[in-house]
């Protein structure tokens, strides 16, 4: 049984159809990429899965259980966490505090025992710190030593992306939805994050769905690629299958402007 099953998902904003009958499955341990031109509805799919939006129709099942209509925080409890395309870190909190706050939902003490610092609370707090360093260590020692106690607003863009991924991992989720994890990163950082995403699956045991524009990254790590265009799924399969699909080429190259953009992406993303 697939870990995540998305069936006939529809969502429109006013007159605009953001997703149109989108269906796909994700099996445990897979890395699945969702690609498509700008405005294709990729982020909307993430927002629907995480409960930020409610689908107009269709079903989303996680571990066999329908999660449509559940609150975002409930869905995290069940084991789906995400990052945001436009970075939504807690900017005035430190790197460590950001990653710790993602574990709060799993805390099993009342606020009163937190105030009184009961042994049970202390134990859990220490455990939370261990998990936080464990997740941050995926990104090498750069977020570890003094950066741990630096507020997020002094971090570089790339470090913020890394912090956000560590924060999503720290929630304890099994399925991670990464919205353009390499946006704003230079080629070598992109190369690095590609390796890290693979290690997140291999060593961390996470199942990963990611939205990306950089085809180099997508081609290198995806077990499967799903292509969206105007809210519709137009192709699904291995990276090679998908990029050779005439419908996909049309979606990207149909317009002249899109063709230029693709070239530009190839240049930056695949070098």
């Amino acid at each position, binding site marked *: 049984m697939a870990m995540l099953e998305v069936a006939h998902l529809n969502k429109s904003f006013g007159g605009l159809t953001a997703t149109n009958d989108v269906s796909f499955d994700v099996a445990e341990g897979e890395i699945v990429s969702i690609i498509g031109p700008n405005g294709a509805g990729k982020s909307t799919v993430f927002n629907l899965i*995480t409960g*930020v939006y409610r689908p107009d129709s269709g079903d989303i099942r996680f571990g066999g259980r329908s999660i449509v209509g559940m*609150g*975002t*925080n409930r869905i*995290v*409890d069940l084991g789906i966490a995400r990052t*945001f395309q436009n970075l*939504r*870190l*807690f*900017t*005035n*909190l*430190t790197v*460590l*505090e*950001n990653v*710790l*706050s993602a*574990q*709060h*939902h799993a*805390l099993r003490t009342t*606020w009163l025992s*937190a*105030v009184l610092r009961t042994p049970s*609370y*202390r134990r859990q*707090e220490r455990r*939370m*710190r261990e998990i936080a360093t*464990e997740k941050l*260590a995926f990104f*090498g*020692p*750069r977020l*570890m*030593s*003094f950066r741990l*106690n*630096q*507020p997020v*607003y*002094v*971090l*570089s*863009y*790339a470090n913020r992306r890394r912090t956000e991924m560590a*924060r*999503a991992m720290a*929630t304890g989720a099994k399925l991670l939805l990464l919205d353009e994890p390499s946006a704003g990163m*230079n080629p*070598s*950082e992109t*190369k*690095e994050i590609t*390796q890290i995403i693979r*290690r997140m699956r291999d*060593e961390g045991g996470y199942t990963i769905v990611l939205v990306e524009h950089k085809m180099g990254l997508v081609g290198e790590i995806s077990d499967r690629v799903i292509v969206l265009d105007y809210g519709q799924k137009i192709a699904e399969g291995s990276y090679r299958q998908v990029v050779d699909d005439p419908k996909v080429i049309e979606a990207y190259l149909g317009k002249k402007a899109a063709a230029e953009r693709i070239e530009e992406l190839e240049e930056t993303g695949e070098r």
Partner: protein
Amino acid sequence: MALHQTPTAFDDVDPRKRVRNVALTFVAIGLGVLVLMLLESIGSSKLTQSLALFAIWGVATVSLNLINGTLGILSLGHHGFMLIGGYTTGLLILDEAARARILTSARSMMTEESLAISVTSMLRSLGLDALTTPETLWVRFLIAIFLGGLMAAFAGLIVGIPSLRLRGDYLAIVTFGFGEIIRLSASTRLFAEYTNGALGFPGLTSEFGKSIWWTFGVLAFTVFVISKLKFSSYGRAMQAIREDEVAAQAMGINLAYHKVLGFVISAFFAGVAGGLWVSWLGGVRLDFFLFQLTFFFLVAISAGGTGSITGVLLGTALVVFVRQYGDPLEQTYTLQQWLAFAGGALVLMAALAVLFRSLRRLRPRFHWSAGVLAGAAVLAFVIAAIDPAFLEGTFRGFGMRAIFLSVLLIAIMVFRPEGMIGRNEFSWAMLLRERRSGPTDEERGQDAWLTNPVLNPRGTDVDPEAGPQKPTAPGRAAARELDADWDEGVDEASRDGTDGSRAPDDGPDDGPDDERRR
């Protein structure tokens, strides 16, 4: 050098320092008690009263700041919660003589049944007669303010619920509305039986509200609970909500629960503060709980530093000082004197402008605006000295204290919007200048090594030449697997000099030079 925001202090400090910090805290509390004893014995009653007022308002501002600063919701209804606590406490500890007076008064709106409500009667019905003697009044007062806090907390639960659906300005208006509804409904027929309508209850004991021991004791308890809460996982969740609600929820934080929790805890302490406040005033009346009270609290919070308990207490001290010792501002003076005062204020502003510019290292230090202010001051002095005919007459500075506070608030918001001490929190480490605002030289070296491909062409984790470094095992594996060039974008921090990546020549043993690389 900017102080960094205090990281969540928890087991971070090494054990020896923790012992030292606890010891220092006890010494400080001991010294504080001694100072208070001294002030109580030699100071005027006005001084002790002012100190008690500081502590009472401190309870209110620290609790309000849990909503405004930690949770990031602008709440304008704190006076309503205080009112509930105040009336509850008042009704519960009113003495027999005062009750008899109210009952026989023609304009009284209370009934025999409602006047029978008291801690004394509760204790009697529980068979605890020993606690109803005059000597044990303090026990009854303690019970009364606790129950007052509980009543207010219940109101906080109700007010907290709209906060789940509303945001920002709209929510602020709703909390303001709630505060006013509470205040106005206290005088309606519905509640007049318990509140005695517009008359309230006069003749309340001031034994507790004006005692610095009681008020400072309650303040210490409040600061303890709220700071422990703030620096716990729950406090982090609340701050996450303040920073970004969508992200907080996407990280599994239950917005509804934490917002309502914040409101309930805050309202509880507001209710307790209300109980002390009516005792300080020696009675309960509706106009003791005007919106103005919340306004003063907000001034204190904004002036001191939103989100910082230390800052809020500092701001409260300022506001209480102006309230208690600002009488000269509201006296009657001749217009000539007023003009001279205005001149003095202008001189002060000019001096502050120069001071501000030199503290910020702005050039020129003597900006033309300071010259204009000084010129205006001279003009004012000259006119006052000439004393022309139009300066006849007098003027009473009615409301000058509030105006003064407002002007002060505007100045702080313009020049230091984060408040006097911003988000920083007092800590021994900060006082002893142990708080780190950047990496050590060793860490700088390590960071330079990691992020600079020129120094580290093979992309290994540890600079073999530098001192002992202990990156964790996964970190080491991560770095080994990477392709060589980690060309990390230079952090913003590095522009402040806190990032090592651009300064390989910083320390003596910072990164290896070319020779060592080969």
